[in-house]
């Protein structure tokens, strides 16, 4: 330890501590402009200068770079230090245009604050100033060189924290500016518009364009809430002025560490006040086919009576209700409660059915709990190697992607198994560009090599697992050469990857829909846990099997029992006593039969077995495979009700539309991908006749004869806690408490004093022993042939979320990416006479669409990829509704298509 004094206060610090860190330890403030925590100091602004006396010698140095020495006597505000700082500010102002009145950052500028504090009004070094044009090419923010003090906080944020490296210092000396590209345009480089650089800028040099619309002192309130897009669960403030959301501000939450992506920062509030919002209930006039405005009483009476009529005539199994995995837990809980108590069926589901149901089912079978085993921080800060399979987090979970990039920058090894050249594959030590639909063979090949090399964890296998003998026999057949042929990879790469993964002390498997969305998705998931079980990488820090969940609350939707097999908290209908428990809690008899999965509802509707459907906030016409088949099913229903924010493609087929509220208008909780339950808070009220979604459900329940008292969101969470052991310790009051400190609680959280569970399966698996599932490779349901020779995969892009119901209402996002495209390989394109940018006709056995070709080598020959966001050519007209036998998840990732030039 090193001993020193700062302004006379004695301090004891670890060797290597800087003066600035030591001062902060004891609460002494030293001004900084360029300093960025967690990153090597830049030392460029010179403002943190202090006076240090040691052994009779005195020097001035920057506190951010100077390490503490034994016996240092540090003065942070001596007369000389203050003079020095004044001169530094004076010099900074000599090349900083002062037009504070009209500057967006007025009142929110560190340079302004320090000049005020140190009494520097204007520069005493007048002369030539930087005179370069403002770069406003980025859709969301501007860069004004005349305000830039070259502190490099933006550059260091982008490079070290965001891990992108999209910007750097251009030119030299007086001409220096921050830039992204040789054309001097920010939008020409690789910038993802996340805006974390803007947040880091201490002046107005980088400024969000929307800041022109409000001044900091006009802000009425800032409401801390959870991002409504992906499952990362980023925390941010909604900034409210005059009752409207005008901006967002990142919060240093557990999952996001002060970072946001472009959707979170810039695409999470325009939709709230969109003129497209549904403002009052609508009933379809059977004769004209047009929707007509109705009162809430008319709409709710009609819905309740129609469902009860159908139930009476055709029985409870003719009804079904889906919950919205973008809505809070409390809403979802009420939807499944309504379906179970009023409809009298377990046919309730959520859109996890089409994304990660295979993870929920698969990991529950092999480990006992179908969720991410380790926290985001743990699998990005602690590992020696990350094994990323079928996941493109830079686009689908951007803030997790940023943390993975940080890990790689720090020296963590990366193995990517993905059919496409995704961004992270370029940074990977090994990229296994495997053929879509061959995950089971791939995992078996990895295990073959591990066993061949004797790298399996015998003790772990013996003490904590079962089924090893059988899987060992199976994987014997999966030699690297055979697997290489199935997967179209190099056998030596497979060997290297297996050895690297097995030998790494800490190595998480992180996977996503590339593993689940197959007709063998559940087996693919179980193959992931097989690999981790084999090398004992479960139940400890920096390891685990980690599915990145899709929607903001799709984890919660599964947790809340919006599934046909489970009550809340994965209490199985089939398990003894569970139905009885809920019958007692809810006071009515309940169905003992497992319900129908969402993906089986549509075929049943076509057959006439399902007559009435209630959908809360889903848009299956856009998101589900084989669109024509979904539409046919919806048209065949006797009665179809949707609870929505917008007139979606699916809503057009409804008989009644009930307008609900967005995440910004209500209280509740979302559960992110790492099982972290976090608060959603009301920020604004939007004009209109919309109602709280829980109130809509509760009113319907009462009309259908179930006496459900009106409860607040907090009261509903209390009810959830009372019937769900893994949520027993969770309440809104506790989530808001100082104890939790804005970090949420990770289930299982079994009592009011339980701290939550960051890492699952420590010491013992939830199911007791971990089970090696004996998985054999089975090819995809639809393989390419002469008629349809190319494999199509589908997925998401950075700038939009799924149906675009929300992100599509931020015009700038639509300007960046607003149209359908298909990525195809250059060799295929040559054969078909297609050039980059050509319009193409894409067809499968189920449908035909038009799109624009993006020709390159991102996909392998014989393979193609499309996003499903865009209505001008939605991939789901083509996709195959072949279902997995366990989870009933559809095969979005493989179908056979042909591409023709238009």
């Amino acid at each position, binding site marked *: 330890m090193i001993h020193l004094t700062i302004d006379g206060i004695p301090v004891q610090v670890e060797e290597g501590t800087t003066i600035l860190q030591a001062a902060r330890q004891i609460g002494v403030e030293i001004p900084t402009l360029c300093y960025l925590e967690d990153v090597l100091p830049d030392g460029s602004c010179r403002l943190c200068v202090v006076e240090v006396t040691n052994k009779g010698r005195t020097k001035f140095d920057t506190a951010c770079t100077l390490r503490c020495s034994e016996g240092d006597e540090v003065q942070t505000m001596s007369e000389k230090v203050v003079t020095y700082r004044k001169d530094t500010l004076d010099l900074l102002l000599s090349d900083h245009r002062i037009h504070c009145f009209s500057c967006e950052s007025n009142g929110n500028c560190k340079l302004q604050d320090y000049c005020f504090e140190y009494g520097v009004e204007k520069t005493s070094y007048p002369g030539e100033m930087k005179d370069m044009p403002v770069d406003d090419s980025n859709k969301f923010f501007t860069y004004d060189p005349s305000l830039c003090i070259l502190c490099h906080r933006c550059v260091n944020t982008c490079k070290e924290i965001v891990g992108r490296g999209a910007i*750097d210092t251009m030119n030299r000396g007086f001409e220096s500016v921050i830039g992204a590209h040789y054309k001097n345009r920010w939008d020409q480089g690789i910038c993802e518009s996340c805006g974390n650089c803007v947040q880091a800028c201490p002046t107005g040099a980088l400024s969000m364009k929307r800041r022109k619309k409000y001044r900091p002192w006009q802000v009425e309130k800032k409401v801390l809430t959870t991002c409504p897009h992906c499952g990362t669960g980023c925390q941010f403030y909604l900034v409210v002025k005059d009752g409207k959301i005008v901006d967002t501000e990142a919060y240093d939450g557990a999952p996001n560490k002060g970072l946001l992506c472009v959707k979170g920062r810039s695409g999470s509030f325009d939709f709230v006040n969109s003129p497209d919002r549904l403002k009052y209930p609508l009933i379809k006039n059977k004769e004209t086919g047009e929707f007509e405005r109705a009162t809430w009483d008319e709409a709710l009476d009609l819905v309740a009576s129609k469902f009860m009529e159908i139930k009476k005539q055709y029985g409870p199994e003719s009804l079904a209700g889906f919950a919205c995995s973008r809505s809070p837990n409390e809403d979802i809980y009420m939807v499944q409660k309504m379906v179970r108590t009023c409809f009298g069926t377990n046919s309730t589901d959520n859109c996890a059915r089409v994304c990660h149901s295979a993870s929920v089912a698969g990991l529950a079978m092999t480990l006992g709990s179908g969720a991410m085993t380790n926290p985001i921080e743990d699998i990005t800060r602690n590992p020696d190697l990350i094994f990323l399979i079928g996941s493109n987090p830079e686009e689908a979970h951007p803030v997790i992607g940023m943390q993975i990039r940080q890990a790689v920058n720090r020296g963590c090894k990366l193995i990517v198994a993905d059919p496409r050249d995704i961004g992270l594959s370029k940074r990977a030590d090994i990229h296994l560009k495997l053929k879509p639909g061959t995950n089971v063979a791939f995992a078996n090949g990895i295990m073959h090599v591990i066993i061949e090399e004797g790298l399996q964890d015998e003790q772990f296998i013996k003490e904590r697992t079962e089924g090893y003998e059988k899987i060992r026999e199976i994987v014997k057949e999966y030699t690297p050469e055979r697997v290489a042929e199935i997967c179209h990879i190099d056998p030596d790469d497979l060997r290297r990857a297996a050895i690297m993964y097995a030998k790494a002390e800490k190595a998480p498997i992180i996977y996503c829909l590339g593993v689940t969305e197959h007709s063998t998705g559940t087996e693919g998931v179980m193959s992931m846990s097989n690999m981790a079980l084999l090398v004992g990488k479960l139940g400890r820090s920096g390891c685990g099997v980690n599915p990145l969940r899709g929607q903001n609350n799709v984890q919660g939707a599964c947790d809340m029992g919006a599934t046909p097999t489970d009550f809340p908290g994965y209490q199985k209908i089939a398990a003894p006593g569970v139905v009885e428990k809920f019958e007692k809690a809810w006071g009515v008899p309940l169905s003992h039969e497992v319900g129908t999965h969402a993906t089986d509802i549509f075929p049943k509707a076509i057959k006439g077995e399902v007559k009435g459907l209630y959908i809360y906030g889903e848009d299956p016409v856009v998101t589900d495979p084989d669109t024509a088949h979904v539409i046919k099913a919806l048209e065949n229903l006797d009665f179809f009700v949707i609870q929505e924010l917008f007139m979606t493609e699916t809503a057009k087929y409804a008989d009644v539309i009930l307008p609900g509220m967005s995440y910004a208008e209500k209280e509740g909780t979302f559960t992110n991908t790492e099982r972290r339950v976090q608060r959603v808070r009301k920020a604004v009220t939007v004009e209109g006749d919309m109602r709280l979604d829980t109130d809509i459900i509760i009113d319907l329940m009462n009309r259908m004869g179930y006496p459900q008292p009106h409860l607040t969101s907090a009261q509903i969470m209390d009810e959830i806690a009372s019937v769900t052991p893994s949520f027993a310790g969770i309440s809104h009051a506790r989530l808001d408490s100082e104890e939790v400190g804005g970090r949420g609680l990770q289930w299982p959280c079994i009592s009011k004093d339980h701290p939550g569970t960051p890492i699952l399966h420590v010491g013992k698996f939830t199911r007791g022993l971990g089970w090696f599932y004996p998985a054999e490779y089975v090819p995809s349901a639809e393989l390419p042939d002469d008629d349809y020779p190319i494999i199509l995969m589908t997925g998401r892009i950075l700038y939009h979320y799924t149906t675009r119901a929300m992100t599509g209402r931020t015009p700038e996002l639509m300007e960046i990416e607003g149209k359908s495209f298909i990525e195809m390989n250059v060799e295929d394109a040559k054969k078909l006479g297609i050039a980059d940018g050509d319009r193409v006709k894409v067809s499968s056995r189920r449908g035909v669409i038009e799109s624009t070709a993006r020709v390159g080598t991102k996909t392998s020959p014989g393979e193609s990829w499309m996003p499903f966001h865009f209505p001008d050519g939605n991939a789901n007209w083509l996709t195959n509704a072949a279902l997995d036998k366990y989870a009933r998840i559809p095969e979005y990732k493989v179908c056979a298509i042909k591409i023709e030039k238009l």
Partner: protein
Amino acid sequence: MLDQSYYAKADEIIDQYGGEPSALIPIMQAIQGEYRYLPGELLTYVAGKIGVTEAKACSVATFYENFSFDPKGKYVIKVCDGTACHVRKSMPVLEALYEKLGLSKEKKTTDDMMFTVETVSCLGACGLAPTLMVNEEVHPRMTPEKARELIDQLRGGAGA
């Protein structure tokens, strides 16, 4: 969009220097040696190939005066304006060249792509001041008159 041959040439140069990030500067020099300037598209291409971010590559390229994103003339004339040359009247030499060629500090290359005139801080030939270089050749003890003659000579003695 550059012609495909540029990318093929870049590949050849990258191979020659090894595709490591540390080879950025020699690769850029070789490309500039080939084309007398550094086509921006190629910089982006090289950065991607050797694992340097595009912004970093641009940062390096713009730091050094020697790299140019603008195509240069057949004859690149570097007028030395180091201390020794400056005091021995290098500026009138530069002015004479500007006047003769219709160039300026902003417009450095003639429209016929024959001449580029730029200043450098020191050519390391102070004993010969004021000096200038035409491509790789040093011209000592320049005067405005000699500079004008030089241009005529380079144009093939036909006169301007």
